[in-house]
């Protein structure tokens, strides 16, 4: 058991993956000498060489496109996109190429690769540095999409994503990189990748989040408890496939569900969770599923991001509203 930050856990997970399989490569802008702008790849080039830890030209489509070629040649590239807002130049490669190679080839070809994206807001950054692009990838068949919310998951899920034979979008809540510490047992078996997880049991309302919003969700549960309300908190972890079994089981008990994410509310992941859970739990629901997402504006200037992002108050408010039906 070692205590480490999310950033360090990701670094350790990458290191382990590089040690375990010599076909694993890391590539992206500034991932080499610099160790990445967030230092997630710190020290890796020194230890694994620049054939495996590859600084690339400044072109995201080029990075993902050449990673596809490397995967076709039998490698397992782990691509770093420097910030969420810079994944869009690679969108065509991700959505039309990465996601479809296996399908187009009638299942003959594999393109195992991981696209790591530091995502989400709350770090006071300039525009294009605080986005939550997950819904667009979840809507895309052929991609798997996961996100971690703590060091243990960061360490374990990244290794499993790299080991998976399917392409995985790995979303890293950048706000937690250096702020969130936790215990990581590097010798324990890795936690399952494709499952969501109840992180706090409760009986009155179900609260679902993932990645950067998990700490808000847990804060809400703590505050609500003082007010006498018992909230069950679930960390989705895997966004595609969506593992809603624990959510459905929970809602059948609680009758109420609130979903939280930073992505824009319209067609954010909450819409899908609401639609599916309502279909599965129609007779159990005491209130409609409520969503707390980023507003449907572009991500705003940093000095008002806290008003824009889902926070304790907006989530608590939604919890309250579920009792108003």
């Amino acid at each position: 058991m070692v205590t480490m930050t999310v950033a360090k856990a990701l670094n350790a997970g990458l290191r382990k993956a590089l040690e375990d399989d010599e076909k694993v490569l890391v590539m992206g802008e500034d991932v080499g000498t610099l160790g990445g702008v967030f230092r997630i790849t710190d020290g890796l080039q020194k230890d694994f060489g620049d054939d495996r830890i590859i600084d690339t030209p400044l072109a995201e489509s080029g990075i993902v496109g050449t990673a596809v070629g490397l995967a076709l040649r039998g490698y397992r590239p782990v691509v770093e996109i420097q910030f969420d807002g810079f994944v869009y130049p690679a969108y065509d490669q991700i959505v039309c190429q990465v996601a479809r190679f296996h399908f187009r080839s009638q299942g003959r070809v594999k393109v195992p690769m991981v696209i790591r994206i530091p995502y989400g807001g709350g770090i006071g950054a300039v525009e294009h540095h605080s986005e939550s692009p997950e819904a667009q990838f979840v809507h895309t068949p052929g991609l798997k999409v996961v996100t971690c919310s703590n060091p243990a998951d960061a360490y374990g899920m990244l290794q499993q994503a790299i080991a998976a034979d399917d392409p995985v979008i790995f979303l890293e809540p950048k706000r937690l990189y250096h702020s969130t510490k936790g215990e990581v047992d590097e010798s324990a078996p890795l936690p399952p990748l494709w499952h969501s997880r109840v992180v706090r049991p409760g009986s009155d309302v179900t609260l679902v989040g993932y990645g950067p919003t998990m700490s808000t969700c847990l804060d809400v549960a703590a505050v609500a408890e003082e007010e006498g309300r018992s909230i069950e908190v679930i960390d989705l972890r895997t966004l595609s496939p969506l593992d809603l079994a624990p959510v459905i089981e929970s809602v059948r008990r609680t009758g109420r569900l609130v979903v939280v994410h930073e992505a824009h509310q319209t067609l954010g992941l909450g819409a899908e969770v609401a639609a599916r859970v309502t279909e599965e739990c129609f007779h159990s629901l005491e209130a409609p599923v409520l969503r707390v997402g980023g507003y449907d504006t572009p991500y705003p200037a940093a000095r008002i991001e806290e008003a824009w992002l889902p926070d304790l108050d907006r989530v608590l408010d939604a919890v309250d509203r579920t009792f108003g039906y």
Partner: protein
Amino acid sequence: MTDAVFGPAPGADEPELVQLLTPEGERVHPAAFDTDFTADQLRGFHRDMVLVRRVDNEATALQRHGELGLWPQLLGQEAAQIGAGRAMRPQDFAFPTYREHGVAWTRGIDPVRLLGLFRGTDQGGWDPQDHNFGLYSIVVGAHSLHATGYAMGVQRDGLVGTGDPERDTAVVACFGDGATSQGDVNESFVFAASYNAPVVFFCQNNQWAISEPLERQTRIPLYRRAQGFGFPGVRVDGNDVLATYAVVQAALQRARDGQGPTFVEAYTYRMGAHTTTDDPTRYRRGGDVEAWKAKDPIARLETHLRNEGLVDDAYLAAIAAEADALGERMRRECKELPEPVAHDIFDLVHVEQTPELAAQQAAYDAHAASFEEVL
């Protein structure tokens, strides 16, 4: 256009083509790239071109008869494709566009396998690994990056510059003149140059991107694009199979030797429509087709072969018969291509199927079954 301060406009003059065989079938010997061919090689090129032209005609006819939804014709580009394809070694790998029927032929892909994509029975009828030939790429330019990445993999495998002809490996990215405008293609030049990757960019300049003439994409000869990225570019007569073979072979050898990327512009002409749904009469310029007909790739090689006494009527009749048989087989086997089964697609999305897709598959099956009961 010349400018007092900046000097002459870069590279707008028309270059010489590398040519080994004139349109009249006369063998010429350029200083660079001259190559000796055996009689078997020459006859082989000829046979290849005759057969792929037949493949193309047959597929066009199949489309007219409603057996295919669409067919992109290669008519006129046989020499470029056969020359480039035959220059490859087995271990080399090619990433094609949608029109690479000739290259596919040289990689041992049964022409019938090409039809599935256009018949709508599949989206890629062969295993790229079996033939070292990628799937046809519909999104213009995207695969040029795949080729470059694959070449980076070859480098990491230690398979450039070993000196072992059985092992040293090169990669070919095939694309058209229009594709050179795409960001992805230019990014592949950046990456290939930056890593000195063993890739040959094989551009068939057939003068058109659907209805748009070459001038819309570039104002200088296309092969000079490579200069801007720091690697060599060459224009070769793409209707001359010998020259295309020689130039591509040299470029591949450069790549295999570890000298990095090369851009080859095969200067040719699309004699047919863009695809069977296109109507070139809306945009073609008078006389073009006639002028290019005089440069036909098959006719010139045939003249040369006849002049050299390497083929006679009997030989040519035998090849024609082989083409007839191939055409007949295509017509038959096209209709026998296995129909896709909707149930299966849910298995093909991922290597490891998700519970969601399993559930959709089950729902689909139940829905389909409910009809079978009714019928």
